[in-house]
């Protein structure tokens, strides 16, 4: 059964890539992600200047399942993009550079560096829920989304992907992003959340608030993909709580053509997770009598 798929014109040998923020900020991380077997590398969100990120705790596993993080967009800055791209190319993998910024100028600045370095696409992080002045603070406003996507798209030849998060005007933001030139959407980012330790009676993340990921947000992601695909028939990369072939298949049925994995790569389990998703998807397509992923995209829209 063929699992290969094109996402904004980039050919992927299967639909599973890593989510931004999982490794992806050093040369060594790229090699590790390649060993996990992903079909494309997504870098950690890169900003113009290096960022230290927050004090620990930055990531915690929750007793109810799922993970909460507030890393604070720690990244080596745009100077590192070249090395990350070169490393991905060594493994013959497409690389999508995730970009963060406070305004369209910063996005454009990093995007140009990514294109110059040979990146295959960029993903605009318009949805990080915990970095002040970045992410969802700008991404939940459809007109700002339009401005940023337009400014970036107008100076790049490589495809622009807009990563949006859960917010009231998600479909509107998605629509504006596509009008402004985005070739695909990544849905969704982590969801703003917090965790309190009941014995010390204190919030655990140093930043207090963070982004929730993992299985608890999967139904939110499926809903977001379903709604956006229904209205816009866009190319969508599903992200949020995928941990096995079923949770990936659900996203494809909702309208995604590829998926990104983050939390399920916890404790270094990447290779096993990717392999089991791929073999599960092949078997699933066979059971449904479908010849490829293409035939499954958005199938659940026919109700």
């Amino acid at each position, binding site marked *: 059964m063929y699992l290969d798929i094109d996402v904004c014109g980039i050919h992927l040998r299967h639909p599973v890539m890593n989510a931004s*923020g*999982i*490794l*992806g*900020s*050093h040369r*060594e*991380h790229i*090699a*590790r992600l390649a*060993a996990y077997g992903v079909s494309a590398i997504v870098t*950690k969100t890169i900003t113009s200047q290096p960022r230290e*990120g927050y*004090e*620990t*705790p*930055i*990531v*915690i*596993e929750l007793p109810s399942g799922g*993970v909460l*993080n507030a*890393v604070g967009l*720690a990244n080596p800055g745009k100077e590192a993009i070249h090395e990350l791209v070169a490393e991905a190319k060594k493994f013959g993998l497409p690389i999508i550079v995730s970009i963060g910024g406070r305004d369209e100028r910063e996005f454009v600045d990093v995007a140009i560096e990514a294109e110059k370095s040979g990146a295959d696409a960029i993903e605009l992080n318009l949805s990080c829920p915990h970095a002040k002045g970045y992410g969802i603070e700008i991404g939940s406003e459809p007109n700002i989304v339009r401005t940023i996507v337009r400014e970036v798209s107008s100076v790049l030849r490589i495809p622009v992907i807009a990563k949006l998060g859960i917010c009231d005007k998600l479909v509107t933001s998605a629509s504006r992003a596509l009008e402004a030139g985005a070739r695909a959407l990544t849905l969704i980012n982590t969801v703003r959340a917090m965790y309190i*330790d*009941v*014995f*010390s009676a*204190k919030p*655990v993340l*140093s930043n207090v608030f963070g982004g929730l990921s993992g299985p608890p947000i999967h139904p939110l992601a499926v809903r977001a993909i379903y709604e956006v695909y229904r209205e816009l028939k866009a190319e969508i990369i599903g992200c949020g709580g995928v941990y096995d072939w079923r949770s990936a298949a659900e996203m494809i049925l909702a309208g995604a053509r590829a998926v990104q994995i*983050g*939390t399920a*790569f*916890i*404790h*270094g*389990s990447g290779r096993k997770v990717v392999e089991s998703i791929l073999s599960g998807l092949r078997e699933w397509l066979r059971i449904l009598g479908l010849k490829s992923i293409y035939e499954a995209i958005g199938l659940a829209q026919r109700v």
Partner: protein
Amino acid sequence: MKPARIVLNEPIAEDLYLLEIELVEPIDKEPKPFQFASLWIPRVKEIPLSISYAELERSRFRFIYKLRGRGTRALSETLSGSFLGVKIPLGRGIDLRELRGKKLLVVCGGVGIAPLPYLVRVCSENGYEVHVVCGFRTRQGVPPIDLVFPISPHSVHIATEDCSVGYCGDALTLAKKVSKSENFDDLIFVGPSFMLKKACEEFRDVDPMISLETLVRCGLGLCGSCYIRGSTKLLCVDGPVFRCSEVSEYLAGLPD
């Protein structure tokens, strides 16, 4: 992050503390030697520490830590009875079966002694012999060996650089002497990075194991802060113990 309560937290040598915690809820998986924990001092930070000793049936874990910065200082000022959060166990640790035999020489410098008591316990339960060489700068830095090791190693050799206790010199020099007088099946070094680098050079022919320290942030294999330069390894999931040959590019980049 599991809640835990401090049972004991006291100095045992200059700038060296012994900490014992009790988990609020038990865990059922016996840790492996050299696995570590990340202790959260509420609203201060998390600090990664080797597991010094574990008594699973009582949900008790011991750590030996050195005052280094803001985190360890705050920990040293945290009173018995206070609550902490703990990620435990982290890392791969070592499986005794990957050792080349049952007679081990373990060489530590300073606070590198921390993971040894638990290693000694697991080894002695499985019929392994652990001989220990420990180096310290001065007499004030030497903790009471009986207190540190609930189960005694087969032998303990102490070295001090100021020649005030035991062998006069550093741990590596004493280790060379000990390993010449007796045969060991495998060697493990735990200590500051310059010591590990030197150990890998001086014991190159036997490719010993070394326990590395890198910046650990998330501890879960996600953030990648603890990547080992020139390899695909992450300390927090694959480490902290490696053969010298597995991390040669990393070692080459360390200062002498």
